[in-house]
Structure formats: C-alpha cells, structure tokens
C-alpha cells in the first residue's frame, strides 16, 4: 500500500507536460520494473483513459491502484499522484502575486503569455491531424470551431459543456441513422 502511494508520488513528481508524458513513465515503472500490470492491460487502460474524462494520470493511478489492492489501493495511488503537484502549486500560489511585481518576472511572463496561446493552438493542430479524415467529424469540427470563435469575438456566450453534450447526442443520432441505412 505504502509502495503504491510512494511509486505514484514519484510519478507525480517527475512528469512534466501532462498526461501523455505520464503514460510512458507509468508503463516503464508499472509494467517493466514492478510488473504490477501486463503490457496488454496497460494498452487497454490507455484506451479507457483516453475515452473517459479527467486527468489521464488520475485515471491510470486509480486503475492500477484498484487492481493491486482494491478500493484502498485506488485511494493510495490517486492521492499519491495528486499530492506532489498540489504541494508545489500551493507554495507557488502563495508567492506568484508578489513575484509579478518584480519587473524582470513581469517581462518574462509577458513573453510566456504569448507562448501559451501558441501551445494550445499547436496541440489543437496535432489533434486535428490525428482526426479521422471523414465528412462527419469534419462537419462537427468546423461547426464547433466557428461557434466558439463567434462566441469569443462577438461576445455572445456559448457554454463549452453544452456544445460537447450536443456533439455527443449528434454522434449518437448519426450512428442510428447510418445503422438504419445498412438494414
């Protein structure tokens, strides 16, 4: 139990750049070194983590923890993976406001602010090139992008959650329609 907690705390300490970086580290530790789960289970878990909401690291920690030691294991692993970033960010949050009053820091953040938009856009481009090259996803993609741009630049508000739910329902309807056509 303590080992689960410490191992996932270590994973939480050393993964920069979010979920996908974490998956390779989890594979290295849990499959190759500790043999807690098999390679197939790891693949299966990656699929589950990608198709369920929430931070991928938490999905993985809960999955491995539950498999090893049931509910208690799931708690130990999940808290382990969260705790390091919680502590680090909590300390930063106490100082960031004061930091910003130093001119060099404010200048640096002015540059960083520009990088963040580009990072998000770049991540979106990567996802776009992985998207299936079919008409249906393209229509959904163009519609959501247009709606979102209108909502940001023209100022009428559309909730992202409502948009995603609508897209999910449209996916379901599209599935039924194409099934019916086959019969």
């Amino acid at each position, binding site marked *: 139990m303590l080992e689960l907690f410490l191992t996932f705390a270590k994973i939480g300490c050393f993964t920069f750049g979010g979920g996908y970086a974490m998956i390779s580290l989890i594979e290295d530790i849990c499959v190759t070194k500790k043999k807690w789960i098999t390679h197939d289970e790891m693949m299966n878990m990656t699929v589950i983590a990608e198709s369920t909401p*929430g931070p991928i690291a938490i999905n993985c920690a809960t999955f491995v923890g539950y498999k090893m030691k049931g509910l208690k294991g*799931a708690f130990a692993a999940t808290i382990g993976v969260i705790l390091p970033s919680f502590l680090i960010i909590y300390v930063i949050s106490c100082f960031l406001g004061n930091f910003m009053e130093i001119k060099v820091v404010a200048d640096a953040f002015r540059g960083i602010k520009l990088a963040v938009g580009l990072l998000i856009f770049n991540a*979106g481009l990567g996802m776009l090139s992985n998207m299936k090259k079919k008409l249906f996803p393209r229509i959904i993609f163009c519609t959501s992008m247009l709606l979102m741009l209108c909502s940001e630049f023209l100022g009428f508000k559309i909730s992202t959650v409502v948009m995603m739910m609508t897209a999910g329902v449209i996916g379901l309807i599209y599935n039924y329609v194409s099934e019916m056509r086959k019969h």
Partner: protein
Amino acid sequence: MIYLQLFLGFLQIGIFAFGGAYGAIPLIRDVVMTYGWLSEDQLTYMIAVSESTPGPIMVNMATYIGSSQAGVLGAVIATTAVAIPSFVIILIVSTILKNITDNPEFQAVLRGIKPCIVGIILSTGLYMIINNCRMDGGLNRVNIVITIILIMFILLHKRFLKRKASPIHLIIFAAVLGVAFGRI
C-alpha cells in the same frame, strides 16, 4: 458559498474534460471567466506555471485557483472536485462496466465529442494569440514580433530536430524573449 462554487465548478471540469490537459483548458477558462475568479492574463500565467511544474495540469490549475480564491481549504476542495469524476468513472469501468469501451453507442457519443473538442481547442488558442496581438484601439507591435519569433521557433524545431518543441522549452524561450524585449 465560494467553497460550493469551487466544488461544483471543478466537478463540472472533471466530468467534461475529455482529451487530456488541452481539452480541459477551454473548460477551465469557461468556468473561471463565468465566476470571475481570474482575469484573462492571470489565467494565462497560470496555464504556463501548470505546464512548467510536474503533475497533471488540471490538478495544478485546480489547486492554484482554489488557493487564490479561498486559501488552503479552497485548494483542497477544488483539487478533490476535479479528481472525483475520473476516480469514480475508473472504479465503475474496472468493476461493473468492463467492456464499455467496446460498446457501439458509447463509441458513437465519443465520435461526436472528439472533433468538437478539437474545434474548441483550436479556436481557444487562436483567440488567445489574436487577443495578445492587439491593444485598445490598435496593434501591439512588440507582442506581434515575439509571436512571430515563437512561431519560427516551433516550425524550425520541427523541421530540423524532427520532433515537436517541448512546452517547457517554448515557455523558457518565450520568457527570455519577454525579458529581452522588456529592456528595449
């Protein structure tokens, strides 16, 4: 009341954040702006800090926003709320619904949601870039120059090193540029 708002806001983010950290950023932005917790600038700084510190970005954001709004208790509440949905969903998937990922209806819903997220992420990024390049009634020339240098950095990195520039490298480079242009 702020505790309840933090809890519900981050619970909502945890439930709908498909597609990893970048999928969560537009959602977090939506919630944070709706409640007026952070300004657009503060939120961007926080995204950068979350990218450059270890751990899941969503957890980092939850901790920061919780702490900035309501101290250590706020941080605990927001972080717990963002983690609960994936924790519960994974428990359900590994006990009752083992084959949910093979279910055609589940797949159909995902086929609708995934391209929608890509659209949301791209337009959020585009909006942030354009918003940074303008000021009240005009263009912010320095920011435009820095943005162009950063785009060159991304493109050249991909062209010559054959892999994507890591977010941390880009953030460090951008910080250096920011300081350099601040001296001029």
